[in-house]
């Protein structure tokens, strides 16, 4: 009777549930694959109940931004058209044949970005059925912001350039110095392995270097904003990301590159 009475004490169940919660937390941190399975399962189940909210959100967001976006996009299109025309003229003068673009970008919306994993990654609403491939470059406003690391049929996960496990070959536009871009999980970027005798100036651009079939070279990443303390003959360079990494709502995923191996 005493045991039964004890079993009916809410505080005891509270203690057990708190301990169980921490056990779950430990298990999920220890076995990330299990965590991913559960996250994907829950997200798949909630896909349909959440669909009206996503649609409603898009309607509100796009209708409120429509006028502003339209005028800024028109300006941008005009500018790009002029640049494109000038470049075509120069190429024609030089006798270089302009290749027809065979690849494109897939525009995707961000459907999940964990506050506690803010600088590491996010989920987008496009997957393998939309032509997304693992390793593909992800850009925003023309700047590299990450790479696809996991692809499902209808959604994908993106690892951001600010993640400490993100490494990508990059080159300084003005000097062609090569290095590796790495994040620190706190929103900062560093260009590693630049010899310390190289004098890089603030404001110099940094772009991707050829590293894989899904990350084309020449995608802008950001600008040099300073140098850190020299280490082992190399000078880590602080980079400011070109994209607004705290204000990401939709991104472009590079869908080309299949023919280059």
């Amino acid at each position, binding site marked *: 009777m005493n045991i039964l009475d004890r079993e*009916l*004490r*809410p*505080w005891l*169940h*509270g*203690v057990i*549930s*708190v301990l*169980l*919660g*921490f*056990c*779950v*937390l*430990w298990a*999920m941190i220890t076995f990330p694959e299990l*965590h991913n399975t*559960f*996250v994907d*399962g*829950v*997200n798949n189940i*909630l896909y349909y*109940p*959440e669909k*009206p*909210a*996503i649609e*409603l*959100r898009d309607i509100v967001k796009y209708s409120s931004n429509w006028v502003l976006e339209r005028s800024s996009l028109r300006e941008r299109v005009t500018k790009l058209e002029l640049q494109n025309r000038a470049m075509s003229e120069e190429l024609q003068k030089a006798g270089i044949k302009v290749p027809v673009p065979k690849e494109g970008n897939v525009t995707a919306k*961000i*459907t*999940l*970005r*964990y*506050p*506690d*994993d*803010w*600088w*590491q990654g996010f989920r987008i609403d496009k997957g393998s059925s939309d032509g997304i491939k693992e390793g593909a470059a992800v850009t925003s406003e023309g700047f590299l912001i990450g790479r696809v690391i996991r692809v499902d049929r209808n959604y994908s996960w993106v690892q951001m350039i600010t993640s400490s496990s993100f490494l990508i070959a990059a080159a300084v536009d003005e000097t062609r110095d090569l290095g590796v871009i790495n994040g620190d*999980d*706190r*929103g900062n970027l560093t260009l590693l392995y630049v010899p310390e005798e190289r004098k890089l100036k603030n404001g110099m651009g940094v772009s991707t270097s050829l590293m894989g079939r899904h990350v084309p070279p020449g995608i802008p990443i950001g600008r040099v904003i300073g140098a850190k303390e020299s280490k082992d003959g190399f000078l880590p360079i602080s980079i400011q990301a070109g994209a607004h990494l*705290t204000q990401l*709502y939709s991104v472009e995923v590079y869908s080309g590159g299949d023919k280059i191996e």
Partner: protein
Amino acid sequence: MIYLIAIWLLQDFVQVFLMGFFIVPNIYLMLLLMMSLLPATRKEKQIILIWAAFAGGLIWDFRWTNLPGMTAALNAGLVAAACFLWYKIPAQGRTVVFFTFILIASILISGFAHFALWTVPSQVALRQFFVQQFLGVPLVIVFSLIYWKVSDRNV
């Protein structure tokens, strides 16, 4: 139980709608606290509500927090602690004012625990935290009023 599922889905719906702007207050926890502290609620039902808090929190974690088990532990712990505290004070003290105090304390603890584990820049996180608590104020008033009406009927 149907109310709990409905409120959980409503909270999720609102969070999807407001994603990127602010974080929705823990409406599910507020409902659980209200249901568990009503005069007519027996211990057996409180235990069910504690585990409902755990289950709802766990699914929320898998959907939104990336720390699976944290919201589950927080929700269940807070409901259990509220029940424990509620029955530790004399019956005359179990008023709507005390219920409101428990509600505010619980959502502040829950909100602060999440805030402490975010890696977003402190200014952004702080703004999100304050907006979340600010949005919780009308909900606290609504839940307190409901509690007042329902408990009055039960007395």
